[in-house]
């Protein structure tokens, strides 16, 4: 008589800490030696760092938090910065909650659009060179990636164009800029613009232009990869069914390309965020710049370790959180739900 096969749960394997350690740390004498050796070095090193951290002069951070966050923004205007920061944090929190709850993307875009408008309005009376610290770092990164996006999209489409002349020009632009270091681009724009227009344009604006141009080449390369990731078969099917070249691009290629580009674009933003630290070389007071300026004061002359460790920690936290968020976003998009 045939019996129905019933699906049973798997046998439970109880992993005590001992068996886990046995398997993962002391598996064989090489691993055991490695574990002990590495643990010893780690312990010794960790103790040194811990002792230093407890006795370090953290006043350079704690007494100057305002400088670190908004730079030399006049005290009377600080409220704008706090409101803007609060709005962005609220918008971010709402986005996460809304995405989990399945709110339509259009609503989320609207939320961010409104937030950005509000922030722009809050900051409108402020001069560009009054902003510093963490806010300047964020401002540089956001402005650069946003302004570079349209240029990059156009260049990327030109890079994959069927017209050889357009392709040549776009390739020259993208590969030419990618071939030189960012600091060269920044110095170029800083010197070039000041030479030609006198000293009229604030340094922050020059840095923004430089970073935008630099970023546009990388966005262009991402766009190219995005377009090429849409299989040839898609274009053939669209042409076979009668869609024109532009219709194919608009309805079939670009929607799929943009979706495929999102992880790379977020990665590029994170990269740009870290690269804003280079503006210290052209004299800007971003997060790193504030730190170095503080070091010039007599009371903080020897607090080198505190400044650079703090800068590393802040950058790490922002960057890591953004990367983790991007990975979560990728996983969510990968499910393909709408």
């Amino acid at each position, binding site marked *: 008589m045939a019996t129905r096969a019933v699906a049973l749960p798997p046998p439970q394997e109880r992993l005590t800490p001992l068996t886990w350690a046995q398997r993962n740390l002391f598996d064989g004498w090489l691993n055991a030696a490695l574990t002990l050796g590495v643990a010893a070095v780690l312990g010794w090193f960790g103790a040194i760092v811990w002792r230093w951290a407890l006795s370090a002069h953290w006043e350079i951070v704690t007494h100057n938090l305002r400088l670190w966050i908004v730079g030399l923004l006049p005290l009377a205007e600080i409220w704008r910065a706090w409101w803007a920061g609060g709005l962005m944090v609220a918008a971010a929190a709402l986005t996460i909650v809304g995405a989990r709850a399945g709110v339509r993307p259009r609503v989320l875009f609207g939320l961010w659009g409104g937030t950005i408008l509000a922030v722009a309005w809050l900051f409108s009376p402020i001069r560009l060179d009054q902003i510093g610290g963490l806010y300047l770092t964020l401002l540089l990164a956001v402005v650069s990636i946003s302004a570079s996006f349209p240029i990059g999209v156009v260049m990327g489409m030109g890079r994959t164009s069927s017209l050889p002349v357009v392709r040549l020009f776009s390739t020259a632009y993208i590969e030419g800029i990618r071939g030189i270091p960012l600091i060269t681009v920044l110095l170029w724009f800083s010197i070039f613009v000041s030479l030609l227009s006198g000293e009229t344009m604030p340094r922050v604006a020059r840095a923004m232009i430089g970073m935008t141009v630099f970023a546009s080449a990388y966005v262009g390369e991402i766009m190219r990869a995005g377009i090429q990731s849409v*299989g040839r*078969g*898609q274009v*053939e*099917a*669209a*042409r*076979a*069914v*009668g*869609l*024109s070249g532009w*219709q194919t691009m608009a*309805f*079939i290629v670009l*929607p*799929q390309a943009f*979706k495929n580009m999102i992880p790379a674009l977020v990665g590029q933003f994170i990269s740009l965020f870290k690269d804003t630290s280079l503006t210290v070389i052209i004299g800007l007071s971003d997060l790193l710049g504030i730190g170095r300026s503080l070091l010039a004061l007599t009371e903080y002359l020897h607090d080198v370790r505190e400044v650079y460790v703090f800068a590393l920690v802040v950058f790490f936290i922002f960057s890591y959180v953004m990367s983790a968020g991007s990975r979560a976003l990728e996983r969510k998009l990968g499910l*393909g739900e*709408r």
Partner: protein
Amino acid sequence: MEQATPRDGQPMIVLEDVHKWFGRLHVLRGITLAIRAGEVIVVAGPSGSGKSTMIRCINRLEAHNKGRIVVDGIELTDDLRNIDAVRSEVGMVFQSFNLFPHLTALQNISLAPTQVRKWPHARAERIARELLARVGIPEKAGAYPAQLSGGQQQRVAIARALAMQPKIMLFDEPTSALDPEMIQEVLDVMKGLAKEMGMTMVVVTHEMGFAREVADRMVFMDEGVIIEEGTPEHFFTNPKEDRTKLFLSKILHQ
């Protein structure tokens, strides 16, 4: 517009001494073929014989280098208007389906009619639903391609091609990428097209059972040339050329 020719009696598709090179590779070496309205042609041959290239030339996915191709009285040249006119009369079904993954099945089918023929959305949607019913999966209208099986995807692809109300349907190895148990459902739809709608069809396939049942004429190609053509009975019982016999012996002992 090129002067419309009288259709009755005139072939629907005419290929005259068509040559095609890919770089230095001579893929089509003088193809001459005439297909009448309502005929079902099955093209067979070893891989690399140029069969796919030939049918892709018919709707200008590839441009032929020499010779003439005339589709429903319209000659295929560099003239963009001619190319568009031909494409709106010829539907194509691909081996890898090529459904648009970011659109639902319904949207896949109704996109071209709304954008190219400028149909109102309501009409396009109605026709799309009818076509989905015709290919047997009306309940999948709101599904995305990733949620459909291979056989269902290919059937949606056929509906998408039919939405433009073509006079000719081209099939480029439509079942080669399908699991065996799904091949039959697609072949049944194609059979229905041939028998109930009297569609002019050019099918590149290895499915000899389908050929025997549905084809009016079979064409055997090898190395860019048509080796032999004739009715299915002629082909399977009494092929003339040696190369034809060799090919048939290799694929018929399944």
